[in-house]
């Protein structure tokens, strides 16, 4: 099983994500620089958090137009699982892989703390390690995590079971407290909280580990 972490200038969660992938799969992921376009043979793509291109213009806007994203979009179209965390979520919406947009937090504050999430759908590739309705704790660290989409899109997401995670209590102003969504095909997940920061007992919490185990385990047995 080959995984890849996409690395943009300004990404700063790429190594955490690489450690998470290696911990769970036993194999170090390929670190793919944003100018590279070869993702052949990759079974799982992770788009890390951080501040790609310094968040200039809009969070994730520049990264979404970088050469590697064409390859990510193509791979997603072929059904390759793509996980975008924090800035990675922003990039996936900017690239059109997920609907909606991430705006400045309603409080205007940078938020960095563990938050409680409700698992809304445990039937996705990424969430099958959880029980539907289960409350888990995952850290957030973001300035632009306020998820917004038009009401029709929100209804479509809810109706289609595409809201993977919801904040148990509102924190950043997100429409309907949405913390993570999947695409229509179910192989692309974008979420603002950082599961890679809740992987080992030393992190103080291991609730994020089951996300990686479920998604990567499903691939290993596929």
């Amino acid at each position, binding site marked *: 099983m080959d995984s890849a972490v996409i690395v943009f200038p300004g990404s700063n969660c790429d190594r955490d994500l690489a450690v998470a992938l290696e911990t769970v799969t036993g194999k170090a992921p390929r670190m793919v620089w944003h100018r590279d376009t070869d993702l052949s043979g990759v079974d799982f793509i992770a788009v890390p958090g951080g501040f790609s291109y310094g968040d200039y213009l809009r969070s994730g806007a520049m990264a979404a137009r970088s050469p590697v994203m064409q390859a990510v979009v193509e791979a997603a179209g072929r059904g390759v699982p793509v996980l975008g965390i924090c800035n990675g979520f922003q990039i996936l919406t900017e690239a059109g892989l997920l609907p909606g947009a991430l705006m400045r937090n309603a409080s205007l504050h940078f938020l960095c703390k563990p938050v409680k999430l409700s698992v809304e759908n445990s039937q996705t590739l990424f969430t099958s390690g959880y029980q539907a309705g289960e409350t888990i704790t995952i850290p957030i660290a973001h300035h632009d995590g306020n998820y*917004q989409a038009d009401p029709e899109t929100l209804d479509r997401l809810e109706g289609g079971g595409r809201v993977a995670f919801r904040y148990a209590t509102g924190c950043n102003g997100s429409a309907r407290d949405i913390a993570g969504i999947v695409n229509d095909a179910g192989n692309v997940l974008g979420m603002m909280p950082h599961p890679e920061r809740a992987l080992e007992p030393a992190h103080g919490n291991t609730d994020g580990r089951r996300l990686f185990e479920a998604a990567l385990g499903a691939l290993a047995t596929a």
Partner: protein
Amino acid sequence: MKARVFVTLKPGVLDPQGKAIGHALEGLGFAGVGDVRAGKLIELELADGTSDEAIDQMCRQLLANTVIENYRVEKL
């Protein structure tokens, strides 16, 4: 030639920055300030003869996120 691109949030999209600016103006004692919307001004220096179509593509592909933002181009 130069072009100015004004990027603004679509009506109805909550603008936390605009709200904060509005509160600050209120704090300074300015009465009668209603809704405040913050936006971006992007100035482009362009080769003479750059088509309107090309500028529009720049706005659509990168400068504005048309999910939440509108844009307006002013050529100088």
